[in-house]
């Protein structure tokens, strides 16, 4: 038996671990991705006033609290049957777009890029953001920190706090912006667009110009065709804040498109007794175990899946990048897990362009940002696209608006089965006849890192690398080899 323990599996419910078992010949018998923690938000939200949930549920994830804040506020709007005024909606969208720039920046530059810029076989002590800064120069490193800060400052300006913002409530947002604030956001927005373009150019220069990386992206080990999910607007363009959820099959054909309140018709969650996290799947196809393909209900919800599930991007430069992406990768849909990094940078550019779009919208400084709910509260579903996957909040309240039932299907959870499958595939590729290579450690990490499991940013950050240990056990359970990669 071999046990690979990987830290940053998820931020939504704590730690993660992978247990890989070998058969008598020393080949992979099975791999289990274990989530050993549960905090129970679904239960303790019961009894809380529903308008407080946009301030309570962000504590599910401090990496993407803005996503919970928005999904929750939208669920509250639905519970109270209240329409958000246009400026309120746009300010939420603006905060959310700025957050996307910051979050995708953290993921790409701190988590993903070191693998590519420094190479997957670079010494672990160098394969981190500081090593990256070394390689690309302090100026670029400073720009990354600076642009992420700018995007977070927009979040803080609109939501009070940069982590766990508080501004959205049933019917709108608590704060309007004035002309000075608008002008500041617009100026930052232009810088973020430049930064988005810079990221895509960097990806071309460093990753796509290197045939070894291109081969890795296209390799079978990192290719897993499955269903793809993503939120789209009325033109089937990628949208993060609003719209319908569209799912395409492994060939790229629309399988279903649903409104938030129809989610229970489409998605169900499978339970396994060896983990505290559930496995969502498409009801219409069914749970067929840890397999992918057209006959398995396993789907992914990632930047790559969002691009696959959409017909394009809603802003001009991101659309150009979208077209180039599919042209280079050989058409839609793209199945290469590692291409998710490229897709993420296209989304980053879209978010930055959308910040400018919203900041220059004549309605954005309208002081009417909230409507007071007048209807009796009952039930509502709110869906946004979190950076790590489609996020669903479903509340049922009593007539006073106190929560009776709460159901949450959280971003990373969508990808629990796909991550498990990708990890098993990587393990199978790198473990043969009981031989475990050092390269396994990082290749397995790369398999799940592209999904951006929620904790990734926190652990793989400077200056350390992710602590990992591989215990290779034979079929009788004795440890035959131990590889560690731990700081110190």
């Amino acid at each position, binding site marked *: *038996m071999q046990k690979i*323990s990987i*830290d940053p599996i998820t931020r939504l419910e704590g730690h993660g*671990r992978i247990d890989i*078992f070998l058969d008598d010949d020393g080949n992979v018998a*099975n791999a*289990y991705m*274990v989530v*050993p*923690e*549960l*905090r*129970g938000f*679904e*239960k*303790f939200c*019961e009894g*809380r*006033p529903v*308008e*407080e949930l946009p*301030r*309570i549920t962000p*504590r*599910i994830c401090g990496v993407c609290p803005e996503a919970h804040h928005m999904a929750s506020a939208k669920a509250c709007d639905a519970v109270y049957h209240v329409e958000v005024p246009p400026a309120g909606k746009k300010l939420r969208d603006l905060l959310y777009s700025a957050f996307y720039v910051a979050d995708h920046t953290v993921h790409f530059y701190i988590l993903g890029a070191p693998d590519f810029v420094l190479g997957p076989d670079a010494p672990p002590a160098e394969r981190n953001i*500081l090593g990256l800064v070394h390689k690309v120069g302090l100026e670029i490193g400073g720009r990354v*920190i*600076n642009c992420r800060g700018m995007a977070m400052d927009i979040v*803080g300006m609109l*939501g*009070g*706090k940069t*982590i*766990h913002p*508080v*501004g959205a*409530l*049933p019917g709108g947002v*608590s*704060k309007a912006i004035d002309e000075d604030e608008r002008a500041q956001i617009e100026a930052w927005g232009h810088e973020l667009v430049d930064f988005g373009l810079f990221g895509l150019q960097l990806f071309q220069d460093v990753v796509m110009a290197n045939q070894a990386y291109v081969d890795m992206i296209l390799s079978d080990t990192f290719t897993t065709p499955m269903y793809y999910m993503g939120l789209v607007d009325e033109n089937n363009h990628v949208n993060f804040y609003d719209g319908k959820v569209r799912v395409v099959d492994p060939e790229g054909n629309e399988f279903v498109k649903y409104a938030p309140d129809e989610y*229970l018709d489409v998605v*169900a969650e499978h*339970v396994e*007794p060896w983990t*505290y996290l*559930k496995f969502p799947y498409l009801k219409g196809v069914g749970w067929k175990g840890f397999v992918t393909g057209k006959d398995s209900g396993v789907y992914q919800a990632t930047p790559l899946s969002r691009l696959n599930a959409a017909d394009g991007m809603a802003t001009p430069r991101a659309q150009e990048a979208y077209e180039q992406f599919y042209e280079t990768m050989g058409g839609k849909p793209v199945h290469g897990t590692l291409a998710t990094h490229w897709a993420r940078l296209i989304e980053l550019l879209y978010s930055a362009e959308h910040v400018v779009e919203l900041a220059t919208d004549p309605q954005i400084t309208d002081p009417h940002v909230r409507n*007071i*709910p007048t209807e009796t509260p009952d039930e509502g579903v709110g869906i946004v696209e979190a950076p790590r996957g489609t996020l669903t909040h479903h509340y049922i309240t009593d007539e006073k*608006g106190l929560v009776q039932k709460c159901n949450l*299907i959280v971003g990373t959870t969508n990808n629990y089965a796909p991550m498990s499958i990708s990890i098993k595939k990587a393990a199978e590729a790198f473990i043969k006849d009981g031989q475990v290579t050092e390269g396994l450690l990082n290749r397995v990490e790369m398999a799940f890192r592209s999904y951006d499991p*929620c*904790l990734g940013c*926190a652990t793989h950050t*400077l*200056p*350390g690398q992710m*602590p990992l240990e591989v215990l290779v056990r034979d079929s009788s359970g004795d440890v035959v080899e131990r590889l560690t990669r*731990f*700081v*110190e």
Partner: protein
Amino acid sequence: MGENGKLKLGLYWAASCGGCEIAIVELREKILDLDAAADILFWPCAMDFKYKDVEAMPDGHIDVCLFNGAIRSSENEEIAHLLREKSKVLVAFGSCAHEGCIPGLANLFDRQSILDRVFLEEPSVDNPKGLLPQTSYHVPEGEIEIPYLYNTVKTLGQVEDVDYFVPGCPPQAPQIWAVVEAILGGNLPPKGSVVGANEKTVCDECQYKREEKRVKKFYRPHEIIPENRCLFDQGIICAGPATRGGCGALCTSVGMPCRGCYGPAPGVVDQGASLLSAIASVVDADNEDEAARIVGEIVDPVGTFYRFGLPASLLHRRKLE
């Protein structure tokens, strides 16, 4: 200190959301200064498989361990003990480790009702056999173990001896940096102190001046559009008067009431009781019945007054059956 003269720093997370880690990323360009002054030994060092690596360290090997997250499972508690042994200074970092935070609201329920809700009752769950997670489960290839979830969420200070407490959900970057500077400069206050905050209340930092106006009716935040003045004075329950300052009153800066994430104000034992007394003192009633009606209209008092501090409070938890 290490041989290179740099501080040996550990950052660990137990039952938490990750916001405390992002709060460190929010140091922004100062993160490079932090790296220059300290060797970060682990961030985080979390898993049971790595106990051995930490166990191998001599006692007191880590100069300062910033521990975020609450104690929710057997694994959380085991590593809290281990890190206490290995750290010269153990800091409860952020609201979860300090006082239990929002995940501490689980103390209004018990372990079984949480598992039932999540794995059996949710409308999206497909679980015809009624399976619940098992601490030890035999899969065809062998045994898989997961930690035991406690009935009760505890603070770090309830399971270990803590040297300092940094409040906040999350701690704000300027406060974190002030703590780092105090550590590096050896300017830490007496053991047991709250650091990374101040000795005032959130009201003292708020853009609005409280006039202690009498209140005939309390409003929920979505029920009125407040005027540009103290929210409490307008009948919106705001935890500012009962909460320690240090955050910069960021929530009220966008017109939303404080919910108390920086914990009890200096000298206050129970934040919820303190907030309740602030409320009682402004109720504008002619008689006891009217007072009871006005206060009785406040929904979810426990979840509001103890939003961030239930495990650390005198209430601690709902009585177990």
